[in-house]
């Protein structure tokens, strides 16, 4: 299958190119913005010698091009550098936050898809009906909610008024074994719910419109003409095709879920990567920022690559175009 192999190689190459570009863009973006990284490394009260020594330690005294080359070679060795502020490898800092982010983003994604598919199907099969309009308005309203407002409201109601959910954090102190998982699950409910609320709409709307198109395609008309019950046409035939574009959403939403959940993580005091990024901005911690951006970019690029490849293998028209 030479065409297929060529397609895969081309997509892989493009993924690598995109990654290199992302490295370069973030590197220079950080350095060219106002904001002196030397300030993050060295205190203004320090002696000049110590200041110079610190700048040398972090390689900040060398020309930008040299720093860039150094960063690239280190990156190829899997070294993301050392944090300006925490005296720890960037990778360790990110890995400490990553499990929480994966848990939050993963659970939000699963719930969203689980709710989004049936809602999208209902909306599409009853297009322009009252239920369809309700679902549309509901989904879009969810998307437009301002997370901090809704977050404090939920915390107040479930944490203070009913007292059934904990306020902030990812787990309680000193809980072990099964109790630890219970605690983690309880802490997860509200932040997960908030994320589901804001992203459910895009899944429902995308699925709705692709499904409407799919239902109008010849094969569905044919299936119906053959006397297949409508329910089967929708779930067996139309949905299968309509789901493909929806899966690409997953890849694209990933970046948002992982890095863009800053407000969610702040309001719920959840120790995820988004908050780490926000704090790193406040501390001018360039290595951490850059590491986090690259990690997110990498995740999105890989997710896109996988969906593209899946797409290409499933739909031969893509390969040849």
């Amino acid at each position: 299958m030479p065409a297929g192999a060529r397609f895969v190689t081309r997509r892989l190459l493009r993924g690598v190119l995109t990654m290199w570009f992302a490295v370069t863009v973030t590197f220079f973006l950080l350095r060219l913005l106002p904001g002196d990284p030397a300030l993050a490394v060295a205190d203004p009260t320090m002696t000049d010698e110590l200041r110079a020594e610190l700048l040398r330690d972090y390689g900040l005294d060398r020309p930008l091009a040299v720093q860039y080359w150094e960063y690239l070679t280190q990156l190829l060795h899997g070294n993301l550098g050392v944090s300006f502020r925490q005296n720890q490898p960037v990778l360790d800092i990110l890995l400490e936050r990553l499990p929480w982010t994966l848990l939050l983003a993963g659970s939000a994604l699963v719930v969203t898809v689980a709710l989004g598919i049936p809602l999208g199907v209902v909306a599409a099969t009853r297009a322009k009906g009252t239920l369809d309009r309700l679902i549309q308005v509901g989904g879009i309203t969810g998307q437009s909610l301002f997370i901090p407002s809704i977050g404090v409201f939920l915390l107040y109601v479930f944490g203070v008024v009913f007292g059934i959910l904990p306020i902030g954090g990812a787990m309680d102190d000193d809980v072990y074994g099964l109790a630890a998982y219970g605690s983690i699950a309880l802490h997860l409910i509200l932040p997960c719910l908030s994320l589901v609320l804001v992203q459910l709409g895009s899944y429902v709307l995308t699925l709705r419109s692709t499904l409407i198109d799919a239902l109008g395609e010849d094969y569905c008309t044919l299936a119906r003409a053959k006397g297949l019950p409508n329910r089967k046409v929708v779930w067996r035939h139309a949905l299968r095709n309509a789901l493909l574009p929806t899966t690409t959403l997953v890849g694209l939403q990933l970046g948002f879920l992982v890095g863009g959940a800053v407000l969610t993580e702040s309001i719920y005091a959840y120790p995820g990567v988004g908050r780490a990024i926000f704090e790193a901005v406040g501390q001018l911690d360039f290595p951490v920022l850059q590491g986090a951006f690259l990690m997110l970019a990498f995740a999105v690029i890989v997710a896109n690559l996988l969906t593209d490849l899946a797409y290409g293998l499933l739909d031969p028209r893509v390969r040849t175009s």
Partner: protein
Amino acid sequence: MRTFRRALAVAAGALSIGLAATACSPGNPDSQAGGGSGSADRITIGTTADVLNYNPLVGNSRTDTWVTNLMYPRMMSMGMDGVRSPYLASKWEYTDGGRKAKFTLRDDFTWSDGEKVTADDVAFTIDAVAKEKIGVVAGLISSYQKSTVISPTEIEFQLSQPDGTFLENVGFWMPVVPEHVFSKVGSVQKFANDKDWVSAGPYKLTTVERGQRYVLERMENFPLIEGGPKTKEVVFRVFPDVNTEALALRNGDVDLIANALPPPLAKTLEGDSKLKLVKVPSLGWAHMQYNTAREPLDKLEVRQALAAAVDYEAIRRVALQGKAVSSNSSVLTPTLKQWQDPSAKEYAHDPAKAKSLLTGAGFKDGNGDGLFDGLSLRMIYDQADPNISKWAQLVRDSSKAAGIEIKLEGLERNTYVEKYTARDYDIYAGSWAIMENPPANLALAFKCKGFINYANACDPELDALIDQARGQLDQAGQKGPIQQAARMITDKVYDNVLYVEEFTIAHSAEWSNFLVQPSELLSIVNPVSVAQATKG
């Protein structure tokens, strides 16, 4: 270690809860924990930020201070009016006409690894600070030459000139670090001190989970509390949003909030019977400083006009909700009763006077828009400070009424630091946390090229007064020249002191026995207070 295990368990749990629960569930390192043996197993303290630096000599954020204060002793502690009291040191005195200063230490402090806390640790610490010029302490001990360890409990310092501020500066500002740990790290300033902590305060840091919690364990033999600290474990929990933090306090997830509450929040919590609010006076002040190195702020009339355009009363009543007192526009605040100048009088809020001063200085309103032409000033402040960003708006609006345009630049912390370090502003708005020792502080803040001289003031007459005060060894002798200097600062508008805040700290009503100390950095999270607090 525990952090990693927990992280691992979470990742595994996300995949398969059942399997992970047996395979790699977070282990229980301490079999007694969570056993509920009595009322005070743990006190949970809320904070809004992570620890940035565990090195007590370098770290300077509020959370850094709260945590490291519990771990590293200082020579002196401080009473409500800023007066020093013994901590690690039991006695201190000047000899040789102020050219020598001496501390006598307690002999019952021990580092957590079993070594005694001795005068050698003190000598090592002050030498490191002086040699590497570490932080604000280095600026406060400029007269330090060398130290002599007389015995394990006695140390004497040689000073370059008589300096009556030296002992109090070293005593209160310099945490003592263990020589046997810090001497092995090369540069002390660069040492991160982020694991295997050795401490001699009431608590010792044991576990760090960034973004979540900092766990400190009791040091049984802490000598200042009979029988050791009452509570076994202190946990600092991080809540980036103060609203969430307050909810956690209200539902009991948190026992105490370390950061001062924004005044409107303090007002709403007043009625909650499950909470106790503690009033803590500030040792500093909130102020604006006009950059005298820039036109037209080099003109006294312009600075006076700016001072007359501020509605001080409204700032305290509305923006601070009455949780602040006037300092009568003097840098000698009412908290420091022994320094206060009774003749000080606050600048009057008088827009008409401001206008006439500016007209006198040659400013005109040619285009009739109600604003003087060519008088648009940039005011920088830290946008994360809830009080300043509120009164900055009041200052802008009331100045506009006096024909002065002020453009607010509420900056993100680092940009703010960068700008004020470079003195790149017309007006600087900020606040001092602790300015408890006027002769020492005024030198840093107002002498020519002073480290924190944000007005860029350079007035030989003022410098002479401050130096004269520093040469005196007792407060009685320092008071005269200091009050004169303070009056000059007010008259020349080198500093516009707006108010002295009265912080509100909230804790659960189940806890009692806290010891209140002044300033947000000490308040009720100072080491003795946390160690002696009891529940129920």
